[in-house]
């Protein structure tokens, strides 16, 4: 999988690149508008991460460029701008998702995976991890063909964990992912403990391996045994 990161802040681009590398995602970067347009013209990407404020141009122009060239890459806007108008304009110009800075890399990763899944949708749409099968479309989880009864939050949590396989996820990243729009309001992340505990119990009871590892005070990690 190949993605393009259009971001003038080199270090952010680098962090994304490093984080995604272990998930088999190949990242190219472009730190300005011209370079970005050249790269878009020459290659096809699975996904584009787009910062709106570029030193030599507006990120919206890139969206227009993509549209005019009939490019079908999924675009996730990553921007420090946080207001409804920018968001709406982004979506109108063809962006698929919008993530406000600062964000957790884990969040960006699962959003990108979800976007690519949507783009590549071909009849079946399921995530398979050993004996666990998650059907995105029907929102069902089976372990060795036994259906699990998960709450919406638990399903969300499971997808987040599997998507970030082998990554240490901080409590705040998980909490913010589970809270969606309300994430900004959180000042205590301890509530995720109950969700983790329940999910873990349901999975192991259904005969799945115990993939959720606790990392000291930091958080959790989905790891193949």
């Amino acid at each position, binding site marked *: 999988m190949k993605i393009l990161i259009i971001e003038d*802040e080199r*270090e*952010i681009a680098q*962090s*994304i690149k*490093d*984080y995604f590398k*272990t998930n088999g995602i190949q990242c190219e970067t472009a730190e300005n508008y011209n370079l970005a347009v050249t790269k878009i013209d020459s290659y096809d990407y699975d996904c584009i991460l787009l910062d709106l404020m570029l030193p030599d141009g507006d990120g919206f122009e890139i969206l227009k460029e993509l549209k005019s060239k009939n490019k079908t890459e999924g675009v996730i806007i990553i921007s*420090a701008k*946080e*207001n*409804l108008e920018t968001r709406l304009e982004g979506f109108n110009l063809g962006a698929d998702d919008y993530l406000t*800075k*600062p*964000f*957790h*890399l*884990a969040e960006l990763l699962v959003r990108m995976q979800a976007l690519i899944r949507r783009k590549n949708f071909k009849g079946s749409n399921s995530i398979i991890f050993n004996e666990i099968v998650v059907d995105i479309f029907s929102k069902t989880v089976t372990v060795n063909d036994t259906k699990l009864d998960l709450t919406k939050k638990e399903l969300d949590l499971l997808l987040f964990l599997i998507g970030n396989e082998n*990554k*240490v996820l*901080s*409590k*705040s*990243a998980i909490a*913010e992912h589970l*809270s969606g729009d*309300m994430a*900004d*309001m*959180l*000042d*205590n*992340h*301890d*509530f995720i403990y*109950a969700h983790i505990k329940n999910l873990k119990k349901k999975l192991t009871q259904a005969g799945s391996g115990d993939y959720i590892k606790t*990392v*000291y*005070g*930091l*958080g959790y990690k989905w790891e193949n045994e």
Partner: protein
Amino acid sequence: MNNKKLLHKTTNSFLIYAVIILLTAAPVFYYICQWLYIYETDEVLLFHKGDFVNQSHQNYTANDIAAWNKYNQNVRIVADMGVKKDSIVGEMLFEPVANEKEPFRILYAPVEINGKKYTYIEKRNLVEMEGMVFSVAAMFLFIIMILLIGIIWISKRLAEKIWKPFYNTLGQIQDFEIDKNNPPHFIPTDIDEFDRLNKSLERLIEKNTAIYKSQREFVENAAHELQTPLALFQTKIDTLQQLDLTREQSELVASLNKDVSRLNRLNKNLLLLSKIDNEIYPEQETIILNEYIEKHLDFFTEQAQAKNLTISTNLDNTLSIKGNKALAEVLLNNLFLNAIRHNVKNGVIEIVTENNILKFINTGPEIPLTEQTIFNRFSKVNPSSQGNGLGLAIIKKICDISHWDIHYSFNDNLHIFEVTF
């Protein structure tokens, strides 16, 4: 203090002056007129006497004198009364015509007729003087009164005209609000002082508005500029925690994680506050608050579990309000969060909707907060709390902007926040 109006004050001074002048002038004027008349009467008496002496009365006989006295009402020649020199006295004498006593001036003068000493007595009635003095005084006072009324009226009208630009300026400044975008427009005036006043005010307002604006922009820009370093911070911590860390290092990273999310929250709230400050929220829609509370009750109940709080609701009254939906949601979220954050372990939160009133009642520290300061930015009762001291400031701002009323009270060890819509 009982403040007087400027125009009344000047008019009042005029009025007081006029009344004093009228009150003192009336008797003084009366007495002067009376004195003048008596003086004139006395002159006439002495003149008559002189005339009498100079004329051919010198050779009057006793019979002539008797005849004189017979036909003269006012002048009588009588035997010497021992009067040495001319003397005039005022006396009340009976006047048969009017059938009452009337004031007279009487001259007693020694005269010599045919070498014999007599006393010349002449009297003059003063009744006509009384009437005359009165009518002259009345006329004079009438003129003074007209004059004074005229002066007061003209000065009042003139003052109104002169002070008009001042009142215009005053009205405009009263309506002026620094956070609204409508600077006052003073009407031009040809009075130098008012012109200077207007210009100084214009300068003052312009300068302060600019300062206020740049202050607001500063907060917004600062918060915006912080987003990028915060993003860097966040992604680096995310990267850092993937390394093979010892337990000690893990705990450090975990605490860094906490700090960065606290910074994030603070920054988001600052952005939100300046957004509320800078943006205009014209969209007014009908919002059913009960629906929103019920929708997010689960989220907040989950948040409240860490403190084992009991949340009870009494939403029988449907609160249907007019306002901006986004702002109303932020208001409710902050009220909810406030009730959770400042609560104690095993505490309670009660949400009540009444007719036009929303109440958040919660347990907490058993001391009342000071209502004057709690809504200020960064006013924190407990400095170590996770809150950033902006929650209540946001609540207040939203209430102000939407013309709602927020009120805090402490009753039965319960903290009550009450929003009246």
